[in-house]
């Protein structure tokens, strides 16, 4: 199933399928290593549910929800661990 990072639950894992952002946001996301095929895991959400914290490539990254909307993912089975 395809959806954006916004819809993932905390501790859920997913694989990035596409980045729909353009311009500065897309460049920033790319530079930080958010590119299709990358595995991510939602590790937390701020007290007001926004921004979201992700773990990928051995480091932790935060994104605002509207930026997370640009990152399309395919959820992975929990049992993958």
């Amino acid at each position, binding site marked *: 199933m395809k959806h954006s990072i916004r819809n993932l639950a905390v501790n859920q894992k997913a694989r990035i399928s596409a980045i729909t952002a353009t311009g500065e946001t897309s460049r920033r996301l790319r530079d930080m290593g958010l590119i299709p095929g990358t595995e991510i895991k939602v590790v937390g959400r701020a007290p007001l549910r926004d921004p979201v914290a992700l773990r990928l490539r*051995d480091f932790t*990254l935060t994104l605002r929800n509207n930026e997370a909307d640009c990152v399309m993912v395919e959820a992975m089975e929990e049992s993958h661990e």
Partner: protein
Amino acid sequence: MSNTATIALAGNPNSGKTTLFNALTGARQRVGNYPGITVERKEGHLNQNETRVKVIDLPGCYSLSSYSQEELVARQVVIDERPDIVIDILDATRLERHLYLAVQFLEIGIPVVLALNMMDEANKQGLRIDVSKLSSLLKCPVVKTVARSGQGKQAAIQAALDHPRIKSGGKWEPLEISYGADLDLALVTMVEKIEGAAFLTDRYPARWIALKYLERDEEILAAGRKLGSLAQELEQIVEKTAEHCQKTLNMTPEGLIADYRYGLINSILRQDVLIHQPSRHERIDQSTRIDSVLTNRMLGPIIMLAILYAMFHITFTLGEIPMGWLEGFFGWLGGATTAIIPDGLLQSLVVSGIIDGVGGVMGFVPLIAVMFLLISFLEDSGYMARVAYMLDRVLRIFGLHGCSAMPFIISGGIMGGCAVPGVMATRTLRSPKEKLATLITAPFMPCGAKLPVFLLLIAAFFSENEAQIMFLITLFAWMMALLVSWFLRSTLIKGEPTPFVMELPPYRMPTLQGVLIHTWERVWQYIKKAGTVILAVSILLWAAMTFPGLPKEAADGFAIEREAAMTAVLNEEEREQQMIEIDNREAQAALQHSLAGRVGSFFEPISQWAGFDWRTNIALVGGFAAKEVVVSTLGTAYSLGEVDPEETGSLSSQIAADPNWSRATALSLIVFVLIYAPCFVTVVAMAKESSWRWAIFSTIFNTALGFALAVLVFQLSSRLLI
């Protein structure tokens, strides 16, 4: 090998780059700014064997695109200053992420040494890194370091000096990565054209230019357009390639490039360069465990408030002690000078102009020192990023950034802060627009110097609900700061919010050396300012309140009065009393006659709308030097002599009894003092953090806004309250 060499240190933020720089150069550092922007430039020196090595600490960045000022600067220094070699510092525990920057330096072609830092942690996490294999695959020397303990720092420098390409003249040899059939074809075509026309090749390697065109790098595109038709041709190739990639792969060229770079990194790491052993998650788990408490939905905000409050409390209680010493010292100096220099203009200039002015400014030094000590600690430990993470949602509504919270709080968001360190703390904001909005609105906070003014007015008119009024003032200040930020961000500093794509670094214990050096830099910059601009403004303000002096007749009038008092039959005490009274009246007359007094009288017709008479106007002019001066100037204007801001009893009863004053006047003055032009120390700090243009803008804008609000408050409340 020549006897000098220049090494640039590069690396991601949180890679330990600055720690290594400190370990290498110690106190032999020079800090400045890159021209026109607020990115810091740090340089240091060291001697290795016979070679004198200049070390440039490049700003920390994740990539070499032109996304942020840091990235642009890092790139420009490498390209334009042509250091002999780059030592790229990588966090060995996050090798994949950190190699991304390394690969880009290799693509530029400058000789590179990789320093795998934090090897101690990598070992603890059970990471095994095959250094010689990594070195041979990337064709560059690789060394292991632990910057915190200084381990490996000599080896890193030696490896840089021994780099085979340095010995053979330091030729640049760009690494060529294959970006897949489509892009490679485009690159070849473009390189041919670029080389044929020597297009920008005096600065950059040809393939790198082509690559930046494919990445649609704004700086390079703009530089190219100035050179004429070839730029168009190149852009057309890029457009065609992009179309093709979109159709066949559903990806943009820049996406593909990042993809292939990470692909290369992964293929290298997978050749047994990086081996994970079972215990690898230990460190992560520790940070995750801490985060499960510190950024917890319920506990997180509470702990954050407690930490912020504690920080604020420590700054002002700890800072107060040395501040008292400094005040005492300058008081003594003033007294001693008064005794040495005979009465007259020179004495007044030295004591009231220079010593009081500079002394008042130097009094802030302990505050700035303590505050930056704590801020560096919070920043280096990784907590500051969490504060931004937790507060971002709220502050974003007003066009600000999560990192804006700290400057507001330090400026007096919980009463009694100081806008000078507050404005300086906006440095932690990496997004220029949000930083500017924070910078302009942070001085609205009720800083410690505004408190005596509020206390005076409250004591005179609202003595029964002191605490409530103080609380309302604080609330009003926050409201104004947020609303004005929102207003500025939707008008003058308009623009998309800067993406909040931010790293949450693992929690680490900061190094003492790092925190101390950081603090010292700030304090020293501030002291240097105090000796130049601030000294000049102090003298100007002194002159405005002194010149022109009373005309001879008026002065003679007071002299005659004095003589009359002397000859009149009075006892010692009464005579003394009368003399003081005459002195004070003379001071009042002199002040009214001075330039500042004339300005005050000149503006009286307008300032009446807000309920201010000429006395208040002068006091407000004086308040530009420092807000507490409002109280002491009012004292002079009411001919009470100098009023100690701590002891305002007599002044407040005088004001309360004055028919010109009412509750409405008091409210309007409170609002005006809260909002109007920041004191000039703050203005100087603002200019340093942004530009003089914005500093002057905020002086005018804040004053206009403060006045508009004061008029509104006065007109409304003088009708509602009696």
